């Protein structure tokens, strides 16, 4: 009996130990997780900002002054120490995010989350993320060991932090998911840069367009997806003289289009990923100094994508937004220049149909069989056996779709040609920009930049302003890569690249300002093939009209423009709809909503109802117009908003206006009413459920935690106006992820803010402390220290000292 009891109590003890020590489903291992000596209670603290820390490999002391925003101002005595310190400090404040993002980039999330992430991981592997990172490292090993050395310094800094970290101090997410940080490597920096490339140059519609061309014919396709819209206010002003370009566009080879039917395609980055930047010249500035602004529009996440730092070494002193994993300042300024980026969308992904031989070891090219190479992707899965995926590579790039992935054709695959696979030296551009002293330095820094193509805005204390559209762009024949191409025909290969010096650019234009907002880079006079690749058509016009509206602009004007909520898209359609809609059948409730939107002045401010009505109305209308695109098992992309509105106003009787499933023949005017009634129905429901549909309430802007938006670590109902296609581009979970304004005084005076906080620890008051000010349109002044001395704004100083091996 007593042995039975002993056995029972033994089993019970083992049982409770197992339950409390093991992650079960989404529930963390509760004993490990909650115990106060090593669990989450140890994370109830802010990061230390004083004292001395000894770091192996450091050559000299590095001083780190923290200001009250927890921005580290780093003073190193050589560049190698500077990047070690950057790695160390980034890890100290953002370790989990730093690592998680590169796991996401590499397609390794199954390792930490489990089988649920397998499809995501396979997609990233097949997209060639790891392959691209390998190419970048190989390029640097061959051509630029200095940059690679700095990347190694950064890795050493990150690892110095990880090595000092005891398990009780692991960031809370490690405890929640029950895993431990691994060593940082240079490849992870390359992966992070691939992650950015995917985010900003990883989208294309070639396969969707191929389906649309097949289903609707060329005439309809060209009407729905024109290369240029009827309005175009390009980044590089229209009057630019291109006669200096002496390299012709690749001639058209008369290759046939391949009209295959593709049922589904891999996940694409958010099409709203974009940005604004602009600069005014000294003559156009109220103070006589050029002023520059940048606000990248990205997903609103916590921890935020940006981490603000000042990075100073004897030969340079830069400050601004950094990205955990990349070296140097990405969007910022130094003592001489300021710079910022917006995305320069261009079609740098093309698709090739591949025909395999019987045993899938070769593919057809130029009338012969060419060998495939195989990259085996070994995907580790938490709690399960690894998944091995063999990805076939052609000279174009990886065969993303084949019988093993999103396709069932045995001897046919679709290969991806992507600039992201070309290797390159993007990191060098940032390192050089951080040190640049003038326009020439800026131009030579940009030469290293391949992808994602960016509109780099520039201003200097010398008084120059400029904007280069920099990337490595294939010199395509007219129409190349708009649709799926035959991968066996050499004419379809990229025949070469546009020489870097012929990339579109503008310096000190007569109009006194430069700007970009992801619109068309050029008009159709630019001698190379550029077509509409999802270019923005609204923000740019509001911005350019603003800068044409008066003679001088101040920092306050810049702030106002960042926070401008004018909805040009609505303003271009709502009056037309109100004028042409038959209102005789509206009920009293519908009429009330009609009057509300009629009174709206097209500002997406938080207490307006107009923006909510517009969203509902236009959303319903858009889907009614493009009901022809709801085709089962066929990947399709609906036309862009600008062209939709153009067609509604100019081709209201077109066959696409008809709703296929009704017997009636609808026109645009019928759709206005039908959509309005549906929208009103939904708005009344919202009113019933939530009390009202004011814009702040309707939109419910939030910053979601990087780990599947965990509500406990996220911020909800952030009261901010704006929307996509508005200069203040804040939609539900996307928007200005960093706002910076720099006046080119000597030294520059800058303000900046982002929706997050400097600490990645949800237990720190610095985790999300910028969000309220950001929502209100406020900025914090960026304390640009001119020497290694703690000024009044500094609340703590930490010294990183070399660790001496005795």
């Amino acid at each position, binding site marked *: 009996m007593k042995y039975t009891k002993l056995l029972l109590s033994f089993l*019970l003890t083992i049982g409770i130990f197992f339950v409390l020590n093991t992650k079960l489903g989404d529930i963390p291992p509760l*004993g490990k997780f909650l115990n106060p000596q090593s669990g989450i209670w140890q*994370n109830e603290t802010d990061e230390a900002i004083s004292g001395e820390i000894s770091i192996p490999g450091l050559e000299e002391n590095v001083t780190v002054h923290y200001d009250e925003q927890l921005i580290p101002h780093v003073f190193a005595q050589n560049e190698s120490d500077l990047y070690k310190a950057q790695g160390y400090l980034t890890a100290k404040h953002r370790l989990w995010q730093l690592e998680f993002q590169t796991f996401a980039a590499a397609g390794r999330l199954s390792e930490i989350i489990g089988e649920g992430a397998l499809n995501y991981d396979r997609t990233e592997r097949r997209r060639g993320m790891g392959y691209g990172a390998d190419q970048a490292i190989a390029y640097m090993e061959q051509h630029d060991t200095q940059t690679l050395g700095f990347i190694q310094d950064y890795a050493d800094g990150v690892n110095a932090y990880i090595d000092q970290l005891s398990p009780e101090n692991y960031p809370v997410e490690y405890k929640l998911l029950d895993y431990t940080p691994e060593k940082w490597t240079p490849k992870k920096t390359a992966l992070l840069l691939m992650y950015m490339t995917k985010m900003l140059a990883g989208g294309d519609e070639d396969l969707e367009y191929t389906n649309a061309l097949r289903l609707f014919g060329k005439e309809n396709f060209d009407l729905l997806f024109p290369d240029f819209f009827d309005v175009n206010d390009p980044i590089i002003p229209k009057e630019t003289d291109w006669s200096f370009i002496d390299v012709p566009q690749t001639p058209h080879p008369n290759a046939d289009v391949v009209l295959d039917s593709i049922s589904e395609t891999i996940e694409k980055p958010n099409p709203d990923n974009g940005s604004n930047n602009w600069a005014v010249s000294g003559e156009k500035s109220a103070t006589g100094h050029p002023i520059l602004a940048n606000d990248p529009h990205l997903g609103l996440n916590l921890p935020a994508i940006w981490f603000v730092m000042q990075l100073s070494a004897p030969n340079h002193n830069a400050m601004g937004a950094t990205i955990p994993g990349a070296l140097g300042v990405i969007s910022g300024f130094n003592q001489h220049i300021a710079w910022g980026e917006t995305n320069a969308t261009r079609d740098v992904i093309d698709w090739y149909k591949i025909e395999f031989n019987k045993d899938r070891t070769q593919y057809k090219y130029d009338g012969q069989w060419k060998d495939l190479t195989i990259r085996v992707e070994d995907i580790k899965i938490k709690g399960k056996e690894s998944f091995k995926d063999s990805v076939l590579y052609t000279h174009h790039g990886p065969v993303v779709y084949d019988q093993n992935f999103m396709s069932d054709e045995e001897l046919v695959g679709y290969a991806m040609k992507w600039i992201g696979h070309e290797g390159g030296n993007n990191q060098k551009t940032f390192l050089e920009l951080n040190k640049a002293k003038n326009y020439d330095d800026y131009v030579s820094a940009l030469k290293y930049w391949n992808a994602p193509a960016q509109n780099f805005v520039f201003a200097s204390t010398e008084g120059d302003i400029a904007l280069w559209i920099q990337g490595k762009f294939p010199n395509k024949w007219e129409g190349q890569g708009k649709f799926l191409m035959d991968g066996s025909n050499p004419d379809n290969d990229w025949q070469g690249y546009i020489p870097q010096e012929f990339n579109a650019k503008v310096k000190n234009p007569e109009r006194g300002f430069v700007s970009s907002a992801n619109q068309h880079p050029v008009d159709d006079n630019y001698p190379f093939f550029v077509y509409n690749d999802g270019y923005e058509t609204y923000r740019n016009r509001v911005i350019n009209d603003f800068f044409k509206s008066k003679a001088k602009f101040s920092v306050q004007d810049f702030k106002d423009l960042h926070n401008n909520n004018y909805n040009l898209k609505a303003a271009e359609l709502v009056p037309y709809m109100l004028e042409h809609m038959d209102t005789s059948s509206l009920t009293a409730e519908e009429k009330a909503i009609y009057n509300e939107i009629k009174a709206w002045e097209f500002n997406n401010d938080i207490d307006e109802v107009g923006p909510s009505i517009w969203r509902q109305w236009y959303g319903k209308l858009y889907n009614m117009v493009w009901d022809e695109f709801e085709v089962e098992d066929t990947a399709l992309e609906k036309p862009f908003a600008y062209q939709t509105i153009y067609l509604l106003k100019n081709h209201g009787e077109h066959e696409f206006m008809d709703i296929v499933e009704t017997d009636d023949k609808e026109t645009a005017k019928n759709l206005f009413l039908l959509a309005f009634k549906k929208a009103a129905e939904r708005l009344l429901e919202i009113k019933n459920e939530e009390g009202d549909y004011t814009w702040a309430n309707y939109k419910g802007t939030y910053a979601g935690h990087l780990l599947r938006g965990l*509500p406990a670590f996220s911020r909800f109902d952030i009261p901010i106006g704006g929307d996509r296609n508005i200069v203040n581009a804040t939609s539900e979970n996307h928007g200005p992820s960093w706002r910076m304004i720099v006046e080119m005084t000597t030294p520059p005076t800058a303000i900046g803010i982002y929706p997050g906080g400097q600490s990645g620890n949800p*237990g720190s008051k610095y985790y999300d402390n910028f969000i309220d000010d950001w929502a209100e349109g406020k900025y914090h002044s960026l304390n640009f220290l001119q020497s290694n001395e703690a000024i009044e704004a500094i609340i703590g100083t930490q010294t990183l000292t070399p660790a001496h091996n005795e």
Partner: protein
Amino acid sequence: MNKNLLNFIATLVLALLLSLFLPWWSIMTAALATALFIPLKKAAVFFVPFLAILLFWAVYSLMLSSGNDYTLAKRIAVLLSLGGNPYALMLVTGIIGGLAAGIAAILGKQLSLVLSKN
């Protein structure tokens, strides 16, 4: 001294000491050891170490959290569906520690019975 009180104090002190160099299950080790050397009777076998560790973990977590405005505790209390109440999280923390300790103490008690009879 009352044996219950003695066990209570011994569990608490031993748990504190072991926690300095063992992981979270140091409290199970402590409860098991005290149950071996200071055996209790009936329900007290479980409840005395249960309360000792509940007190230890709840007070320790209160001390760590109160200095930081309960910033993280509030969030974790959302994560674990405790309505964002940091005190509820401390109580849950204490109960989990107490449960593990109490069960380990039962094993200790059974072990002491087997050993003493031999």
